[in-house]
């Protein structure tokens, strides 16, 4: 799985960030993909594997 440009999306309520890591947006095999924070997700598991291996960094949410 070729993963680039990973970035967290935050969740805001009343303009206040209530969840800094609500989901991840990444380019996976060339496609912009919205990935849930869910260990059952193959994409999420692979993202975290690549992060642990030092091959990928997830940017913080804007």
């Amino acid at each position, binding site marked *: 799985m070729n993963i680039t440009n990973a970035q967290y999306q935050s969740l805001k309520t009343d303009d206040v960030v209530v969840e800094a890591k*609500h989901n991840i947006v990444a380019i996976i095999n060339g496609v912009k993909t*919205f990935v849930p924070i869910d260990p*059952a997700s193959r994409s999420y598991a692979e993202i975290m594997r690549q992060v642990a291996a030092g091959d990928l960094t997830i940017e913080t949410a804007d």
Partner: protein
Amino acid sequence: MSRARDFADLAGSANAGGLTGRNLIINGAMKVAQRGTSFANPSDDTYTLDRIHVFNGNDGATTITQDTTVPSGEGFYNSIKFDCTTLDGTIAAGQYLSFNQRIEGLNNAVLGYGASGAKSIVVSFYAKSNLTGKFCYAVRNSATNRAYIKEFSLTSANTWERISFTIPGDTSGTWLTTNGIGAIHGISLSMGSTYHGTANQWNTSNVVATSNQVNFLSSTDNEFFLTGWQVEVGQTATPFEHEDIGTTLRKCQRYFCTWNTGWTGVSAGISYQQSSSVSLPVKMNHTPDLVRTGGTTSTRYPSSNFGTFHANSDGFSSFNASASTGGNESWQATGTADSEI
């Protein structure tokens, strides 16, 4: 096969698990192709026709398509076709080409694997290739430390053959009974020695073929077709269980589906806001990956945008706000939801 034999086998199947819904393989007739019908040398560890996963790590290239070549008189109208387009005459130890179905643990649980009383299964399918010789079928657990390999032979070139064999239940190992991978059923087309094991026994390592496995990538003339893939409880293969397309599609949609919705954006004085919600056709295996694939766009709503989304296995909603103001707009959006295991 005689009608009396059919009834006898079905009666045996009824004792084992039921007359309908007995096939643990989803989309065994290769009818559902929501992702598309042609995949030119797909990436390793990816999906093609619905529920058909491919391991594709080698120096060759293979195009995978949904085909209409089928065994005559058996009620099929689709098969999956593998066409070698770039050869790899020598498969290195760690290289491979195989296709698989990962059976969800909640479905595989009926077999009682990992404990005494684990049930035998019968695997059957129709296959055809110009390449004759031995191929290998394997069943593994999610940890890939339990693996049963069964060799099968295609003996007549370019001729459909119905293959069937029994695999004894595994009374050892850990086999998930959750929404994760309960069992991985796979057919090797080319397989390096790293993944070679011993046939007709439960191995304790990640092996899927024997050294007798043919190399499908040996020639660009090679083609391989398969349909009517069935895995059922018992000792005797029964006729393939044909399903109506709606039933098979619904089963597939638990793991992958397409969606189509409208987005409406309204000016809110100092900002511009859009929102939408989508109910997925069935409850998916888990919260899906979401991709927007098409629909109408505008400067506020480019083709790949979702805004911030909230999703679970039932559906998702999207919300987007920008500082710019403007008139009201509406868009169509199409996309995919993927919760394959």
